[in-house]
């Protein structure tokens, strides 16, 4: 239990009502906390992608991934550690404009944190930052002093660093399997 770390799980699914809750029960049954979750359609028509992060041991996560893959509508699930992926999340910070103006080096802060300003009104300013969670966290800690009114952070999205596209290969294999069943 001592070698826990953060894992990212990429799940490719058919679009199916109820699948997200089926997948989340696999975590809750084991008392695992899903740290973030992002679901959206993928670049491939009809295929959805769910990206989850969870802190646990590799042994536990491998079992979880196997159980996710067991769901009928799950095409494939992959388990990654941070060094195997390029990942990103996005955060929005809403700060009172007058308080923000107290920040003497606003320009520098925006530049250093690679943030940008989305909207300014007399009352508030909305800042956006994309990055790793420790980076969005760092900006949060800085802006905290200026009275953040709202803060929201997305789940993680990720792509692999691997040169081979395992999922594309998987789909090709399934296509072959379909042709074989049709020949029968």
């Amino acid at each position, binding site marked *: 239990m001592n070698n826990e770390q953060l894992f990212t799980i990429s799940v490719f699914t058919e679009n199916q009502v109820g699948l997200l809750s089926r997948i989340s029960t696999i975590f809750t049954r084991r008392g695992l906390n899903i740290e973030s979750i992002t679901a959206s359609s993928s670049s491939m028509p009809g295929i959805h992608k769910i990206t989850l992060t969870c802190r646990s041991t590799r042994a536990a996560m491998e079992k979880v991934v*196997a159980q996710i893959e067991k769901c009928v509508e799950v095409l494939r699930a992959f388990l990654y550690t941070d060094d195997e992926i390029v990942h990103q999340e996005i955060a929005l910070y809403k700060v009172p404009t007058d308080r923000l103006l107290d920040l003497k080096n606003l320009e520098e802060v925006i530049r250093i944190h690679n943030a940008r300003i989305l909207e300014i009104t007399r009352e508030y300013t909305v800042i956006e930052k994309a990055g790793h969670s420790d980076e969005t966290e760092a900006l949060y800690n800085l802006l905290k002093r200026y009275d953040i009114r709202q803060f929201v952070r997305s789940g993680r999205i990720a792509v692999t660093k691997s040169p081979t596209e395992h999922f594309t290969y998987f789909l090709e294999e399934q296509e072959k399997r379909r042709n074989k069943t049709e020949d029968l």
Partner: protein
Amino acid sequence: MISGAEAILRSFLAEGTDTIFGYPGGAIMPFYDKLYDYTDRLRHILVRHEQGAIHAAQGYARASGRTGVVSVTSGPGATNVITGLSDALMDSTPIVVITGQVGVATLGTDAFQETDVVGIVQSISKWAFQIRRAEEIPAAVAKAFYIASTGRPGPVVLDITKDAQLGMMEWTGYQPVKYIRSYNPDPEINPADLADAAALLNSAERPLILAGHGITIARAEQQLTALAEKADIPVGATMLGLSAMPSDHPLFKGMLGMHGNIGPNYNTNKADVILAVGMRFDDRVTGDTSRYAPDAKIIHIDIDASELNKNIRATTTIHGDAGKVLNALLPLINQAGREEWLKSFDGPDKVEHETVVMREVFPQETVGVMRMGEVTRRISEATGNEAICVTDVGQNQMMGARYFKFTKPRSLITSGGLGTMGFCLPAAIGAKLACPGRNVIALMGDGGFQMTMQELGTIMENGIGVKIVIMNNNFLGNVRQWQELFFNSRFSATPMLNPDFVAIAAAYGIDGESVMSRDELDGAIGRMLATDRPYLLNVNIESTDMVFPMVAPGAAIDDIMLNVSTKYKPETHE
């Protein structure tokens, strides 16, 4: 144009369904109305509680290998099948349940008898799908049967709204499903894994086969025996793996696990190679996993990839159908003889026979209260060991598994993974309907009988010739045993005041008798088996009886209790 309700029935017929177990209600009435026109082609068994419907379908499926079909209404009808879904998922049983659902317009509004069925069953079904329009029905039913019956079988739920049942659609014929992109129930076997497994087995000195339910599901009984015989490998079976190999086969060494036989349990920790086929290393089979099979390289064959390396780390895993894997493995395995290793089962067998079996099955006294073991064995023998034994849960179950003898596959039907009391009587109904030519013995406790005994009504109405044997110890015996062993004999909520079971049967027009003393037993069994009609025996069982041998929960699998105070030790007993 036909209605969605009719499309369901046509789809069932196209799948070869001959029997539906069910119970009507508001949201499923359009289906039941159409069923009225189909009674010449489809037999509907009206149970007395929806739990009975799904357990009956499970009994039907497990006895025949075909998919069991259940129809119930929305809300309470659907929630009453929850236990059976969970049970069927654990015990890999192909079931298709259709639940009625309120109209589409009222979904999500807490309409009368609306329950979020698809939501509730996520973690206890293999697949669940809500049908909102009639046109979706044939494809959804086809998918349901395909998913339920292939790969590792399991229960599937179709939640069919009233709109879908009532809506009209064009029937363009039925297309069975043979392929789903995201679901591959018949994975190709990796030849490298086979080669690894063969090398391990060929170099083994003390190999042991652990045969599970997967053998029965894959209909791989012959392959199992062929492999065991070729390489002279002893076989132990999980409870659900029992009857895959005949009980008296010389290589069959008995049941594994908590109340299994000493030989295969003890020798699990002596084996150098274990070939586990279609079993999942359940905690009741392994005991403490950190002290399980310490000397063995493990080869694990299963169709469910998530079972591989789940409870026990294997040296080699083979993902695939048990029958296909065993077929492929057989030519790679060298013929061998292992006299010494096989003889090492004799010592523990002898000890078990002398310390446990003799008093349980062959008691000295000729009169008085009986023991479950002797009752089970006498019934088994009276059927020529050819009956299907359906058990409930508890001591009666362990005695059924230990002392019934099996000569044919699919002869033990019992709730393994979930351990559902009340399973027996309805499951026996399903088994008898699936196999009318076989004797079906419903072996149960006084507690479990009272959980689903309303199904006597189903038995009466349909004249189902099941043989009901209540091994009546006036106790929740299994819990009582644990109280005596682990809770200082504080018998909290386990003694039971029971009604007159024979009188209850009589009220349903079912013949029966109480067997109060040992000298009456054989006669009563004879009368029970002489008729094709249902019959009930209420057998007077010693209430302090316990099931041994026993591996206490959390103990190592070779740390075996022979009775309350003695542990098995090979040196002193041999």
